[in-house]
């Protein structure tokens, strides 16, 4: 059985390696931890407000429909609230920015990425989004204009100009701005995988069932094998 033990140890080591080096930093500075709770309706709704008031000026989230804002219980807006948000847009339309991609390229030199999958699509996930929004600083070399230098963005030069006005904020504003960045990170984490809460709840039942099944089959195997000398 030595072989078995060796292999088990190797697998355990690999699994631990998987989780510990899971998310290497995407570049630049160390990422700050964001307190994000995708089951907290309050936080997700606050994040939605930041998203519609600030982000959607340029960015879209095309995989989230206005209908989804009603249907996902984690957001759970009323029809009236959604109607106010969507204006002329269809209920089944994705959350598309009014700024066209072509115009954005003219103004900022780059197409603003769609934010539906920004959290799963960036190393560091929610921490990256939070750290990026609170990562604007003056370029230490003084070359990059203010609002385009970010300590966590790969290469530090970012086309997106400081969306929450983090640069040169008053000391007493810091907590509120951090809260905004955290809330929008929570919203974006949620829309990155909108069935994640359902998945975890079902997962608990599945694990419970499997634990029982494994136990029963283990006892059955032992019972059937008890006469075999080996």
């Amino acid at each position, binding site marked *: 059985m030595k072989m078995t033990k060796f292999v088990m140890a190797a697998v355990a080591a690999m699994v631990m390696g998987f989780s510990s080096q899971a*998310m290497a930093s995407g570049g630049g500075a160390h990422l700050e931890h964001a307190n994000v709770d995708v089951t907290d309706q309050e936080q997700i709704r606050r994040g939605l407000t930041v998203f519609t008031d600030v982000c959607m000026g340029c960015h879209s989230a095309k995989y989230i429909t206005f209908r989804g804002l009603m249907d996902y219980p984690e957001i759970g807006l009323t029809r009236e609230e959604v109607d106010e948000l969507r204006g002329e847009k269809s209920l089944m339309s*994705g959350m598309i920015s009014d700024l066209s991609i072509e115009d954005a390229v003219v103004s900022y030199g780059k197409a603003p990425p769609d934010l539906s999958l920004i959290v799963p699509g960036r190393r560091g996930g929610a921490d990256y989004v939070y750290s990026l929004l609170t990562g604007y600083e003056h370029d230490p070399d003084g070359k990059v204009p203010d609002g385009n230098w970010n300590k966590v963005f790969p290469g530090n030069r970012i086309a997106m100009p400081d969306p929450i006005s983090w640069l040169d904020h008053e000391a007493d504003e810091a907590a509120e701005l951090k809260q905004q960045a955290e809330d929008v990170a929570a919203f974006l984490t949620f829309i990155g995988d909108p069935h994640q809460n359902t998945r975890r709840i079902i*997962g608990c039942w599945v694990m419970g069932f499997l634990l029982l099944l494994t136990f029963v089959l283990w006892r059955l*195997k032992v019972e059937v094998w008890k006469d075999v000398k080996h």
Partner: protein
Amino acid sequence: MLDKIMKTQLFAWIDKRTDAEAIIKSQLTEYPAPKNLNYMWNFGSLALLVLVLQILTGIFLVMYYKPSAEATFGGFTVAFDSVERIMRDVNFGWLIRYMHAVGASMFFVVVYMHIGRGMYYGSFKAPRELLWIIGVVILLIMQGAAFFGYLLPWGQMSFWGATVITNLFGAIPVLGEYIGQVLVGGFAVGDPTLNRFFSLHYLFPLLLAAIVGGHIHALHVVHSNNPEGIDLHKPEETIPFHPYYTLKDAFGVAFFLLFYCYIVFFNPQMGGYFIEVDNYVPANNLQTPAHIAPVWYLTPWYTILRSFESKLLGVAAMGGSLAILFVLPFLCKSAVRSARYRPMYKIMVIMFFVDVIVLGYCGHSAPTATLKVVGQIATAYYFLFFFALPFLPKIEKTKPVPEGI
């Protein structure tokens, strides 16, 4: 229960036309299995389970997936959109898709364990050479199927992974460029590539299912090896496959499902190892990701490829590292099968397992000068292991093998 079913009239009717009773007896209830198999022998049945899960979940995914690289709003494509529709709008689509994506990685986990067990206990040796060779064919088809499947979501890593791998064919003299173009369906990875990879991704698992049938048939002709690696002659050394091993395998399946379901429900990306972070970014042929690496199960061979300055040598070494598995039964000449009674082979084969993990680590990480040297040493050991095997019996003093179990 099986006895009761076999006594029914319906069974008698079927039996008369198919010889079902004889098949059940020879393959299950009277099929002799060694009584001392340890839990390392569970991985074969687990591999079969994952294959079935992959085929079933795949069939349902195809009902909603659209293989088209046509651009849609926001820099996405029809293929990428259809995957996100499965994840968001199809009832339990997220479950089916995560099962399939996690299943791909878990397939390789159990198959690599299965192969490792075969190497450690000498299961590839006479009379099981052909059984091993069929197994290597299965491994190659699996790697092909996984590679084709990874293109389908049309994410950044799908696109650039396929670009890097298909470009390798260009290194083959004379015909290489032509083969590459036929595979890609043009001069660069694009919509035609997606369509032919989708077709092949559906074909390969069906081939797998057929060849796995051949693998099991070959096994049932020569019968299982065992941890002692000896031939069994006495009837009391074996037990019928059913109910002993059907139950042990069932227990193994439940135990495996605990891990599989934990990943599916609680950590489906496995920290970027099972579904890479860059693959949530839609494919963009103008923007190369900072670091292109294949999914973890292909990284050992990627390191072998990268260990040579010359592209042709790298491609040849990568091909050779897989091809050499075919001749393993003929390289390993020792009369003793199990590593339990082969002290030198035991150290060598355990080092080989560690070596493959090191190769995998090097292939997954961003290339550095140190890792390159480590990768080259690991590549050298990979081949040294196989080339040393024919000479091993001349110097290795094997321990006495038991008469029976």
